[in-house]
């Protein structure tokens, strides 16, 4: 079997084609958003929001409303509760985040346990990449495109917000509104990624690509290209691995992204643990030869 066969064989199944399309889409949108999350230091917030949307998604399922709507409402509830607990008690922010998101996640699990069609909803937790239906794909496509478009159109404002909110305020923009926009997009994007890797692992797709790209470049504009590219390629590779190794697909996607991060962490020419040393040794050798 040559390489082309290896790549083409899974595509003869419709469910694999849908899985790959969904994954690529989710990987790209999550990766773009992750560039801001890792720079602002919102990884924990990403974790929190992506878990806290669960009850919203379950309730939306029960009443037949769009998942995104339920997710947005509960993302808002989570962020508000975190703010309230942090500001009105002596509990620090990380503890407030931990309390709020685990409680809301647990509420989601309870709601799933009392909802008749349990099997469907369990997929929200671990993802159901190989069972993506056409309507699922359309929903992911619509949400993904909307989130992606807003992120790209407002990228300069969001970067300013991440870098220097005081300056944003000084020139008449509203840091509060920009922060709220980013949180709303985080909720939308979580819904997109639910389908692929499930609630538990969404945070991986929201952090790893941005962190990987950050180790590879000193330009934010390049991060916005590197992160989605690396994320899409490694996620699709993850699906192929899961196909041939017969392992859990969502988990395999995350594992592949983690492995790519590890390689970059070690060998990145600018920031890598080994990469920088190799570059230094090469320079030394070149200098020795010149003498």
């Amino acid at each position, binding site marked *: 079997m040559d390489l082309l066969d290896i790549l083409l064989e899974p595509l003869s199944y419709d469910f694999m084609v849908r899985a790959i399309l969904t994954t690529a889409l989710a990987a790209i949108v999550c990766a773009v958003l992750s560039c801001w999350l890792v720079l602002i230091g919102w990884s924990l917030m990403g974790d929190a929001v992506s878990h806290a949307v669960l009850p919203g998604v379950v309730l939306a399922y029960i009443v037949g409303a769009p998942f995104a709507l339920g997710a947005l409402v509960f993302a808002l509830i989570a962020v508000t509760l975190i703010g309230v607990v942090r500001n009105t008690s002596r509990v620090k922010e990380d503890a407030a985040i931990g309390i709020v998101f685990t409680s809301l996640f647990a509420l989601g699990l309870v709601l799933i346990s009392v909802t008749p069609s349990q099997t469907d909803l369990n997929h929200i937790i671990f993802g159901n990449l190989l069972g993506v239906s056409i309507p699922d794909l359309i929903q992911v496509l619509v949400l993904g495109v909307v989130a992606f478009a807003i992120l790209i159109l*407002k990228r300069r*404002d969001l970067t300013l917000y991440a*870098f220097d909110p005081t300056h944003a305020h*000084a*020139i*008449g923009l509203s840091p509060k509104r920009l922060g709220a926009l980013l949180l709303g997009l985080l909720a939308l994007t979580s819904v997109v990624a639910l389908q692929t890797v499930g609630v538990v692992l969404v945070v991986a797709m929201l952090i790893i690509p941005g962190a990987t790209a950050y180790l590879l470049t000193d*330009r*934010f504009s*390049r*991060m916005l290209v590197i992160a989605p590219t690396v994320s899409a390629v490694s996620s699709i590779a993850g699906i192929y691995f899961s196909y041939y190794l017969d392992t859990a697909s969502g988990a395999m996607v995350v594992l592949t992204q983690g492995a790519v991060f590890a390689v970059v962490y070690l060998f990145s020419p600018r920031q890598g643990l080994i990469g920088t040393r190799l570059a230094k040794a090469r320079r030394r050798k070149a200098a020795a030869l010149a003498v």
Partner: protein
Amino acid sequence: MSASATHRRATAEPAAPHPAILVDNVTVHYGEVLALDAASLSLDHARICGLIGMNGSGKSTLFKAIMGMIKPDAGRVLIDGKPPSKARKEGGIGYVPQSEDVDWQFPLSVRDVVMMGRYGHQGFTRRPSKLDRAAVDDALERVELAEFAGRQIGQLSGGQKKRAFVARGIAQGATMMLLDEPFAGVDKRSEATITRLLRELAADGCTILISTHDLHALPQLCDEAVLLMRKVLMHGPPEVVLQPENLAMAFGLDVLNRDIPDPDVPRRAVSKQQGRS
């Protein structure tokens, strides 16, 4: 309508009737803590003013009040006769943050940061026009950072970092600049460069307010100085404000008798202040 027309005519006259910055009896609390206590300050156009006070004296709070980031519990702030929100929208307020408040690892080039000064002039997506690029180039030229435009901001020296943010204010077209500790972590030569640059900006009509610990740089740089200790204790020419007995008042300790350790020092300093007033 007629009122605003009058106002516009008034500001167009050479001697502007409004001070560049007017802080009028501003009081700010953070919960129980009193940060500013009926502080008042009036600063004329094209002046450079040094704001002196120890940590917790309310320097940052005063900056925030001037930028409208916090609403005073009492009193008001006017920028060129206008409320801060209006001044912000017009792009008049430039801000140079202190070094600790900046993420120097952030993947932006010097040019990217200076371009952020133009965002208020740009459309929905902040796509830079030819005019914006020209303004950024001019600003970089002016602070002598043109050759470093492509560098990641963390790869500049302490003084160059400050100049990059001043360039952002220049590109913005700010008529007023607030600088928070501009000389912290800056070597002597860069300090002189920054001083010259700020003097040039003031000569062009920019009003500059500088919060600083670095007292020896003030006389060459500032037209006036303000001693802050939750309220404005003194406002005058730097050589007067910087007299040791005046500084002692602002720093809450007796700098003249510093070699005598005494638990009552703060109290004595207060009584001294009362004696003076």
